[in-house]
């Protein structure tokens, strides 16, 4: 009796699984086709173009291509460092401090996500360009590139660290303080280790974003080869001048860099989930 009940149960589960599988076959087909046509096929075309003709490495090591990649890489790393500090600080103020207008400030943080990049670039020209009302003119310098990248990546660290700080157990900090730990010690021993995974995630997302940034940089940087031309602007110039092979090559390097960062992040998060961290 018990065995036949179990058999019925097994059969029922099998039927349900089979039904579920055939239910999801059509959506699976639609999703795969859409993703392939919109995303995968075009990206494959870039890779194919970069590696046909056998000039991949000579294109990458073309002096102007290399210079633009180096600028993007160095600026993105610098921006990542500033974001780690400023982002954590802002998240801290938003969680632990209380002041008039806090909800407004909190909403403002997402503005760089909502604002078109070309508008972001124009706002920087308006304040820090040739007609600056505060007499700070960074147009056509590497500082302009840096500033533009800081603008567009501002929300990443704030928005990843903020929820972790909210969850943070204040009793631990109080215990540390009562045992004689100073502010810096409490931060280094208690707070920093807790927010570290979120901080890494925010910094990495910001880095992946800045490495290929185009719209916010293009107006204020002046796009001077070897000086202020970032990688994406270089690719754009190559497309305009008809050097598609060169454009595809630099694109593949950009793709590889940002994909590597995101994949590493994905792996890190999976490990964190498994270890319950």
């Amino acid at each position, binding site marked *: 009796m018990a065995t036949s009940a179990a058999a019925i149960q097994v059969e029922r589960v099998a039927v349900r699984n089979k039904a579920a599988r055939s239910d999801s076959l059509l959506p*699976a087909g639609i999703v795969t086709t859409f993703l392939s046509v919109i995303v995968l096929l075009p990206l494959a075309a870039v890779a194919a173009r970069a590696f046909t003709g056998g000039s991949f490495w000579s294109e990458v090591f073309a002096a102007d291509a290399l210079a633009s990649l180096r600028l993007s890489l160095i600026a993105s790393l610098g921006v990542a460092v500033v974001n780690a500090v400023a982002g954590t600080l802002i998240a801290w103020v938003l969680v632990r*401090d209380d002041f008039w207008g806090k909800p407004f400030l909190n909403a403002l943080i997402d503005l760089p996500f*909502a604002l*078109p990049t070309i508008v972001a670039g124009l706002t920087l020209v308006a304040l820090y360009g040739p007609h600056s009302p505060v007499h700070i003119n960074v147009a056509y310098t590497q500082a302009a590139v840096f500033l533009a990248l800081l603008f567009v990546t501002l929300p990443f660290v704030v928005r990843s660290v903020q929820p972790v700080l909210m969850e943070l157990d204040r009793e631990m900090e109080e215990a540390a303080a009562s045992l004689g730990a100073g502010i810096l010690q409490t931060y280094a021993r208690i707070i920093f280790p807790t927010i570290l995974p979120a901080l890494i995630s925010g910094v990495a997302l910001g880095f992946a974003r800045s490495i290929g940034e185009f719209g916010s940089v293009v107006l204020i940087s002046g796009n001077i080869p070897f000086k202020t031309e970032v990688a994406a602007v270089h690719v*754009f110039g190559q497309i305009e001048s008809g050097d598609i092979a060169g454009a595809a090559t630099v694109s593949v390097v950009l*793709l590889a860099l*940002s994909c590597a960062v995101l994949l590493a992040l994905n792996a890190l998060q999976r490990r964190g989930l498994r270890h319950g961290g």
Partner: protein
Amino acid sequence: MVAKLALRYTAFAYLAAILALPVGMIFYRSFEHGVFAAWQAVTQPDALHALWLTLLIAGIAVPMNTVFGVLCALLLVRSKMRFARILDVLVDLPFAVSPVVVGLALVLVYGRQGWFGPWLLAHDIRVIFALPGMVLATVFVSLPFVVREVVPVLRETGEDQEQAARTLGASPWQAFWRVTLPSIRWGVTYGVVLTTARALGEFGAVSVVAGHLAGVTQTLTLYVDDRFEAFDLTGAYVASVVLALLAFATLFSMNALARKEA
């Protein structure tokens, strides 16, 4: 206490210097020659056409990504197939791709010398330097938002109610419309808001595939760039203000929705 105030004002100063003051400046610059001049600039035929084209493209791209996003999220959460794991990584790809690279990729597939170029040319179908290419670029860059917003909501609601509906005789379609969709509606809406903001504001990818014909293939972001290059700064600032207002509307809806979800 001193430390607290120091932190607070450091954060204020940073946000003011990087974000608030620059954005405030474009409003000031737009209206410094009076409201009338601003109104004249924004009602230029090219500006109005650019706004209309921007809305049209978003109007096509956003529904496509919404349907895709909901389907894809359902697959990611419910499917036990191994390919869901791969799909999970692939869906985020657009976030990792520079907009200019997106444009180049489309040129390499649909451009004159692209994979489908000769065939498209033979059938007199224009994709690059025309509306279809601009839509494809916009769909590409705004693809992951709905998926990413709906997946956590689906995880949280679980499958119980849907299975109950199925047990009571509902077809998969009925269960989806009557049970699943209502339970994820705020997640979907939030994703749609983000998708729309990105679609309205896309510049790099569209710039590569648009061909910059004023009054023809010029979206509002391209118009800003065009006016700036032509030293018509008022035109650039005023169009930017229109885009900035759309961004503020996005922020406002995000906040309203966040409160609704909570």
